[in-house]
């Protein structure tokens, strides 16, 4: 692999820095040369969330000279279980401000460059250009393909991590020396086909582990030591506590990094991934009812059946009184428990899974059926402020 960061000639470490980085400096694999390369290095973290938190924390502590962060989000309570760069007092603040403060506390020598914006095809190349390495901590496919393509076009390594519940993936996509993300997955899954929010969730430690693997890969690329994850996909199963490794090959027909690339500039990634505004949120249009109106029906003792299509473990968190649990996956085979002559209201957490359930039931001939718009979240906002949100 070519040297990414040249040995700095004019950069020096101060006496304080020598003390701070002494545990690096006394290792021959890092030493003064490696530490100066770290100081010289410019790393861009996409996202200051689950993966971005450990990444930014460790890269700062390690003495990376310039750390860019792209994030426009605000800290909320559900972030704190895993996004350890933010703390309880930061809830409601921009993640950028919170991350910047934490980094300054850890290592004031790090120059933080914040991009409080959504990464787009219009701004990505300009932002990436100023950095040596990009570390991708995003979870959505449009941004993932955007980051990949921008890195390939600019010839920069993309240190990739991804998590799902108890499972993680990590790799280094560096088209100069190996495959890119598109060699691995030429196309994203179409929306709606793959399991959606019902299967979400993540154990907080998992992004910690995967983000740390990314941080380690970034540092290895900077100091030019070891075998980077180029051409290898690391799979981590936290429940089994197993690491496996798969070979990744450069696809000669890859549209971005192949022999005859057809993608020479950034494209519309929302379109590429089939995401288009609101249709993505509710894939099918179904009759809706508000939480307030459902409450009114209850108060007026109007007869109706309330079906909750969340998962049993979500039912344990909170439930709307009088609801019956039929998880979305069981709706097709348990439809016979319902009577199409009854008024039926279906709900989930946010209204998306229940929209799917209403669609299924309508296809099966149910007509007196409504989706509770906004689900449990709307119920908590409009009807019962004691209802926990999650």
């Amino acid at each position, binding site marked *: 692999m070519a040297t990414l960061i040249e040995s700095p000639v004019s950069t020096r470490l101060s006496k304080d820095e020598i003390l701070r980085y002494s545990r690096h400096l006394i290792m021959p694999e890092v030493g003064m040369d490696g530490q100066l390369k770290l100081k010289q290095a410019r790393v861009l973290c996409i996202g200051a969330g689950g993966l971005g938190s450990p990444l930014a924390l460790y890269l700062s502590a390690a003495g990376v000279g310039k750390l860019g962060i792209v994030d426009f989000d605000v800290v909320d309570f559900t972030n704190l279980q895993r996004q350890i760069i933010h703390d309880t007092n930061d809830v409601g603040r921009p993640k950028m401000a919170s991350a910047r403060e934490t980094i300054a506390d850890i290592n004031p020598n790090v120059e933080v460059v914040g991009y409080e914006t959504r990464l787009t095809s219009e701004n990505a190349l300009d932002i990436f250009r100023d950095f040596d390495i990009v570390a991708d901590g995003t979870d959505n496919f449009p941004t993932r393909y955007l980051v990949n393509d921008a890195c390939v076009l600019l010839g920069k390594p993309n240190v990739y991590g991804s998590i799902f519940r108890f499972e993680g993936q990590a790799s280094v996509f560096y088209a100069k020396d190996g495959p890119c993300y598109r060699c691995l997955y030429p196309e994203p899954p179409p929306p709606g086909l793959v*399991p959606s929010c019902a299967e979400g969730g993540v154990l907080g430690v998992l992004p910690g582990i995967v983000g740390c693997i990314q941080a380690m890969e970034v540092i290895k690329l900077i100091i030019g030591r070891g075998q980077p994850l180029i051409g290898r996909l690391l799979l981590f199963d936290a429940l089994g506590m197993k690491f496996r490794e798969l070979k990744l090959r450069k696809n000669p027909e890859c549209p971005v990094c192949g022999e005859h690339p057809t993608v020479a500039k950034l494209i519309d990634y929302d379109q590429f991934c089939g995401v288009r505004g609101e249709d993505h949120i509710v894939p099918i249009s179904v009759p809706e009812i508000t939480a307030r109106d459902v409450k009114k029906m209850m108060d007026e003792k109007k007869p109706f059946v309330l079906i909750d299509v969340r998962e049993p473990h979500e039912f344990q968190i909170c439930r709307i009184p009088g609801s019956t649990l039929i998880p979305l996956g069981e709706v097709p085979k348990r439809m016979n428990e319902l009577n199409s002559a009854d008024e039926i209201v279906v709900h989930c957490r946010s209204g998306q899974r229940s929209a799917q359930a209403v669609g299924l039931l309508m296809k099966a001939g149910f007509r007196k059926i409504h989706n509770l718009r906004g689900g449990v979240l709307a119920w908590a906002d409009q009807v019962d402020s004691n209802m926990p949100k999650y």
Partner: protein
Amino acid sequence: MSVKVVIPTPLRQYTEKKEFVELEAKTVGEALAGLTGQYGDLRRHLYTEEGKLRTFVNIYLNDEDIRYLQKEHTPLSANDVISIVPSIAGGKRAEPTKDHFYGYVD
């Protein structure tokens, strides 16, 4: 030939939560056919309507992508491990209002 197919977390809901399935097959294609025969709901996640393997699901025989072997005709040996490796997304959600296709954590 008895082989093991490793099921990734997102698809385990279609295999009665099983982490892996052991079955008899001579080729990768046969193993996958056996698997989707046993668990019908898995089929549309692995194959298109035309019966082609989906491009966002990669199939590995041991540590090698079958696209670089003999694809579904790749012969199997005893104790081979087939892995289904779908693209997963998790980390930082860029648009807080949108749930994503594979999970919605950020």
